[in-house]
């Protein structure tokens, strides 16, 4: 296994899939000659040329829609959003057309499309650029959405997404791009969509998170162990839809407590659905109410020190677990 960055893992996934399948191409703003706004596609244009790496004008609705039409004929477009927030200008294409086509055609037409890019706050770029719409996408039957937290997951999930015959949203994070981790060097390294990963085993409480919040949860778990001898189990959802309900329930039934951590806003966030599932299917196992940590329910603020408070972090997770277990400071 090699130690590479999350960014490199994504790039490797793209390069491998472009090589493997002639129908795979990457399209987006600045993805080719400029090497990608966040350098995820750096070097790929040089290696694969104009056909496989396509620089598009700033027309998200236009080129996502074009990708959808092309996918009907068997191409497998991977569309990059420079920021996932920009998908909002293309909502009809990205969400309405992608999710409806198979159903409305009675199963005659498929849309094997990937839309990927960073979806995170915490980088002081203001409200317009800081959306985390995995909950909105997950609300739509017909769509799939994954949110990798580690380099290995980024690679394995993106590869599975590209090979999938349904539209898949891969939501990354600019804050994770530089993180390093071990990644298998196997061209067939695939992580199934809908399979959570227990990133840390424990018996006292289950922390369920996705994306960057997984790292906050892991950090908090270490500190809780060190300072209070609390054993947290950290479940990384990795995939929001499909959702690994079995792993969630198994863990909660073991620890009898659940804390849900995500960067979404609380109202109708991913945690709302998971909390419902837990109370519905593991009610008798709970020793405490399910708690949630989300971003503070307001548009993303610019002011750097205040945005740090708005978005969930390890300190908040640490404090919330102590609160749930009634551990005095």
């Amino acid at each position: 296994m090699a130690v590479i960055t999350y960014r490199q893992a994504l790039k490797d996934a793209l390069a491998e899939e472009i090589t493997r399948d002639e129908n795979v191409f990457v399209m987006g703003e600045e993805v080719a000659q400029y090497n990608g706004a966040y350098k995820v596609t750096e070097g790929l244009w040089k290696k694969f040329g104009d056909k496989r790496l396509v620089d598009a004008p700033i027309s998200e609705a236009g080129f996502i829609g074009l990708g959808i039409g092309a996918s009907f004929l068997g191409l497998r477009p991977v569309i990059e959003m420079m920021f996932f927030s920009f998908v909002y200008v293309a909502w009809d294409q990205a969400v309405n057309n992608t999710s409806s086509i198979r159903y409305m055609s009675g199963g005659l037409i498929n849309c094997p499309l990937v839309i990927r890019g960073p979806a995170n706050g915490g980088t002081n770029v203001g409200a317009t650029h800081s959306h985390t719409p995995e909950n909105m996408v997950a609300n739509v039957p017909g769509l799939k959405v994954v949110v990798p937290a580690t380099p290995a997951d980024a690679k394995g999930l993106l590869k599975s997404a590209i090979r999938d015959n349904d539209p898949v949203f891969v939501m990354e994070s600019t804050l994770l791009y530089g993180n390093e981790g071990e990644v298998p060097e196997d061209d067939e390294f695939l992580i199934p969509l809908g399979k959570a990963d227990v990133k840390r085993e424990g018996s006292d409480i289950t922390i369920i998170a996705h994306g960057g919040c997984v790292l906050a949860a892991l950090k908090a778990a270490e500190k809780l162990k060190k300072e209070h001898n609390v054993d947290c189990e950290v479940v990384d959802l990795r995939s929001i839809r499909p959702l690994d309900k079995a792993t969630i329930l198994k863990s909660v039934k073991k620890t009898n407590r659940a804390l849900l951590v995500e960067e979404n806003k609380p109202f109708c966030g991913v945690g709302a659905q998971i909390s419902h599932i837990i109370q519905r299917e593991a009610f008798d196992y709970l020793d405490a109410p399910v708690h949630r940590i989300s971003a503070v329910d307001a548009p993303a603020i610019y002011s750097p020190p205040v945005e740090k408070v708005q978005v969930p972090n390890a300190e908040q997770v640490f404090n919330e677990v102590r609160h749930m277990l009634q551990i005095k400071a």
Partner: protein
Amino acid sequence: MSTETPETHEFNKGRSRALEKSDLFAHAEDPVNKGMTVQEKLKCFTDMVRIRKFEQAALQSYQKGKMGGFLHLYIGQEATAVGTVSVLGENDHIITAYRDHGHALAVGMGMNECMAELYGKFTGCSKGKGGSMHYFAPEKRFWGGHGIVAGQTPLGAGLAYALKYKGIKGCAICYLGDGAINQGVFHESLNLVSLWDIPVIYVIENNGYSMGTSQVRSSAFPEEGLAARATSYNIDFDTVHGENLYEVRAKTSKAVQRAYEQSRPTVLEIFTYRYYGHSIADANHQRYRTKEEIRHYQENKDPINVWEQILIEEGHLNVDKVKEIDQAAKAEAKEAVQFAEESPFPPPQQLLADVYHSVDNPGTHTNEGEIFFNDRLPY
């Protein structure tokens, strides 16, 4: 007595080209028309009549409360779908908006499956899951049937993009309404297809109205018409008298050749007219336009009458033959109604089928976990 003249008709305002009386045989000598066999000519006639009879039957059923939702009739515009589709080859594709019954029958979909879809029946072309606005027949290279105004315009670009990507000589026709040209995504699409030399043909079916809003009340455009917007994107455009099938074929064929030979897009604006309201729910349609206006079009520019006149003058058709074709189409539509009536509705279990390819084809995907989130199903 009304003092109306065609010039004062709301739909004709700003459409001086549409007003001209087209010369029936002006395009008869065009290679694509000259090479037409009698059989092909009659097929075009028959297809137009079939579309009309199908929709008249559908209208009756709708009025009897047999179907839900919208029913957007194509009657009056038949030469557009039939004429454009008739020049396409085996690698060419089409995609359109919600006024899609004409295109569906033109590509060869059967009346039965189309009627059953309107009835919401399991035997419908989309198993009763799409309805009137969402017909599909990918095996006939017909990609819908799209309910969001202009939502299909980048998809049409994508179909043609895929042909080019795969090195297939072909094109895609993407139809849209005169109201749809004001959607941003259409302009994004125009820019993309010109920039990337994509072999797509945008056919603006200009029937003068978007719902109750006439063209002059919705669009800013020069004397050359709506299609002239193409010049901003360095795309060739043309205008077409939509009542004359020869002209529709000739100008479509030219655009197809441009797509094949130069991989360049075209915008065609086809002047046409719908006789019924925007949809059957549009009870107002004689308020935003006059009866005289509708009658004027029906009497002077009805696409079926015009083609009939042409074929009679050419000696390929006579009154008896017309009657025969009419009756056959009527009978076919009647049978389709019966087929639809007798067909079953989809079972409720169908709610969860055809949502995901991975669910319907287990074992072919690296997928696990839950994909649907129903606490308890109501059936």
